[in-house]
């Protein structure tokens, strides 16, 4: 029963208000992409023990999608931020570095 702050409406939302949306910062591949690219886009996902970036929707609230950076092992939340970015903002990365020096996730660090 996580609590995540919705960056749009500012509510500290209970998990019952939220819908999980899987891994964040996927890059969409459409027509013209290779089979491998499309396969990875559809099916390949990170499964880290530690720092992870996820999509959530404040479904039973303001309805907005947002991103959350958190630790899958300790459930520590490093921050939530807009869904309308293609990579974690610097302040989120800094917040993670302060707690988990040397972290990496996909191409981010």
């Amino acid at each position: 029963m996580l609590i995540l702050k919705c960056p749009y409406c500012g509510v500290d939302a209970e998990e019952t208000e939220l819908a999980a949306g899987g891994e964040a910062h996927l890059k969409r591949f459409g027509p013209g992409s290779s089979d491998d690219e499309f396969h990875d886009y559809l099916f390949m996902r990170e499964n880290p023990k530690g720092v992870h970036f996820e999509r959530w929707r404040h479904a039973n609230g303001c309805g907005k999608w947002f991103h959350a950076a958190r630790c899958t092992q300790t459930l520590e939340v490093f921050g939530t931020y807009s869904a309308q970015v293609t990579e974690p903002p610097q302040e989120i990365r800094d917040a993670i570095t302060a707690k988990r020096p040397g972290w990496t996730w996909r191409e981010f660090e």
Partner: protein
Amino acid sequence: MSTRLASQGRLIDRSKTIEFTFNGKRMTGHAGDTLASALLANDQMMVGRSFKYHRPRGVVASGSEEPNALVGLNSGDRFEPNQRATTTELFSGLAAQSQNHWPNLEFDIGAVNTYLARWLPAGFYYKTFIHPKPFWKHVYEPFIRQSAGLGKAPDKELKDADTYEHFYFFCDVMVVGGGVAGLQAAKAAAASGAKVLLIEQNAHWGGRAPVDGGTIDGMEPGAWVEKTLAELQAMDNVTLRSRTMGSGVYDHGYALGYERINDHEPGNGAPRHRLWRIRAKQIVTATGAIERPLSFAGNDVPGVMLASAMRDYVVNWGVTPGQKVVVVTNNDDAYRTALALHDAGVEVVRVLDARSAGGGALMEEVRQKGIRVECGRAIAKVKGGKRVQKVSICAQNGVGGAQEEISADAVAMSGGWSPVVHLWSHCGGKLIWDDAQVHFRPDASRPPLGADGKGFVLPAGSANGAMGLGEGLADASAAGSAAAEAAGFPAKNVAAPEGVASDELPIEPVWLMPAQADVTLRMKSWLDYQNDVKVTDVQLAAREGYESVEHTKRYTTLGMATDQGKLSNINGLAMLADSLGAAIPDVGTTTFRPPYHPISMGAIGGEARGKVFQPIRQTPMHAWHERNGADFEPVGQWRRPYAFVRSGESVHDAVNREVKNTRENLGLLDASTLGKLVVKGPDAGKFLDMMYTNMMSNLKVGKCRYGLMCSENGFLIDDGVVARIDEDTWLCHTTTGGAERIHGHMEEWLQTEWWDWKVYVANVTEQFAQVAVVGPNARKVLEKLNAQAGSGMDLSAEALPFMEWRDGKIGDFDCRAYRISFSGELSYEIAVPASEGRAFWDALLEAGKEFGVMPYGTECLHIMRAEKGFIMIGDETDGTVIPQDLNMQWALSKKKEDFLGKRAHSRSHMADPDRWKLVGLETVDGSVLPDGAYALGEGVNANGQKNMIGRVTSTYYSATLDKGIAMGLVKHGPDRMGEVLEFPGTDGKTYKAKIVDQVFYDKEGAKQNV
């Protein structure tokens, strides 16, 4: 015998007598009794039989850890199995039945299992019942089912007569446990101004301290409890609840409390249980400790009891379980029981201290009372069937050669104390093994972590291994202050009260009594009473290679009963460690999972039952449907009429009548449930071109187009008619069940992928009532409404052609009329404001009388669409079907560079020519194919199963054609027209059906386009 004492009993009111029954026998107790104390007061030593061997069992504990005294409580719609006598407060009229015996408690057939014990060892389920194979179905499974589970399930025809509720609570500090540690922790936390919740599972406060003695700030513990409770009650920032158990601790400070509001006076009109859904910034677990049994032969004979429990029965309820008691221990605390018994006038025939040097001050005190204490001695065996009769005494360091046999009718045992670490552990708090105190206790350096990465649970008092009275109070006071500080309330300096109790000498670990007990003793030494797991079972598991405690648990069933091993786990894993030659901390514990103690299903459900289980969505015409024979079916959260059944008709008759009448005259369908999404904005056309497989941006204003939606995986997810309303507005119809899902789907793509596109989506499904006016007389009835009103929109084929829509008036109603058809008939779907829906429906029925109007339901809708070969999302599709499978390539735009699903359709298996494709199916004899039946192919697959080459997706009796019609997906289907396939049914018959065109009726579409 066990009996009520003349003195003692601080929790009972002897002036109030309460009548109750046990197995139909009338008994009496006092106000304040538990069922267990009242049974003991009535000399009811034996209260049930064990699970596997059906051995006689008696009360062994005094609290929620009780493994034996489980009863069926009450009857009829208030019957509940497996209720603990020790936590059941006595009330007038209570009726309890013992469990797990046949034909009765005193004489039980299943007790023969005890003589078969040699053949029912650990893992016997897995070993014994494998061969011979046919025995499983006819012999073993019925036997296991017969003997599986304690208690009886309530009658499935009866509904629980009680009500339950959920309650939300938010606080800074939650303290679990209302013993002296919990009270002090709450006091320390509250002093800082934090909002504090303190819950206690029992009806009374103070925990064990008033029984165990000593002084707090110079007062009797009971007096200190009263004073502190009064102080807390006077504070506005403190909420106190007794009869409320801390059930579980979950992520980010979520906790569940289980309040038993009226179990002690059922039927008083209040909800029975209340589930507290708590969010606490910090949680203090002052949950106390539980005494461990000792493992000696016959430690399960009724009358053998935990020493602390026996002390509770004497002091709290004025009951003694025996007249001649043997106390056996490996620590000093059990001497308190000897003293309590002696003070109450009960003879303590012997204290056996397994430690060769014995105990400290408490032992001396006992000796001074003239009680015989023997050190380095042990119980070899307790003799007696349904109650203790004799105790054989031996040296602890031996094999159990008995040196003396004495008469006794009760045994008080203590194997030491284990902190209740469940709530600490639920969310990841770690434990350490304390060698000196011989138990696991919380490792304060590794607490469960909250959202900020810091600990949010603090253990306090004996739950933290601070076992002495003074030590526990100091620890709890510090924990309370620390919790408040962590919750953002700077600590006030709260002086911990001074607790004074007798000094105690260290415990010595005793995992088997006597230490070298031979096998005949070990196989009568119980570890888990409820599941009948013995010392020899764990030793056998170790010999057979079970090294993991989690595996041993499942193999032996140790700790898997309803008490979840509260008494047995530590003894069991110590025995496993011993057998493996490993250290106890290296073996570790099994996982602690919520709830701490079983909670009722009613409390979990709360108010969500019956009509409020989930909201039911109703259209504006629902009340009319209810009054006119509607046979409802659930579609999503809607209730839609399946058919309108007239008196004397079967549902099937009604459906056939509706089909024929709609094709021949005039039918009305309440289509209000269809999803209606408005998509608007400068980029709406571009967006819909991504959402739908076909082109929507080039749709002309005033026109409609049927569209398909795929997921990014390429699979069909929805379909419906899209109307272009104006230059930047489209209205998308979705399936009834799909409106919210498709709305969410659109929002997801707009918010997370194309967030710079200027598009809004609004779900206006409930803003409109929609009626499909269908049949050859459809235009006539609408024109009649216009004629009656003197004006209205032109509904002619020229003014409103097929697949177009118009806004305007029909009769007195503002409406939007769509010329679309899902039936193949002349059809108008007319949307009016929801508030006008019922009036419009009524007007159509009235005006339609002369045209033979009849409402029709969803089954008629389905049959008519199947007659026309139209697909239905959820019938022809199941999440694995792509448009190409349904021969709908015409709906896949070739002009568009991209749409959701386009890339996926070119993946190799999506383009595989062997995919099953949609065809019509017609049985050779006109019968109806079974739904979901598979078509047989040639040969068998790798598992030896017959190969399948297709399946039925929709199948109906067509009243129009008077025969069965069906659609199905068949391998190479469209290339096999005329071929006859075999479909085995679950009824044992094989159905033969010919592959035909999927359009069975009006192939040219002449009827809808008039």
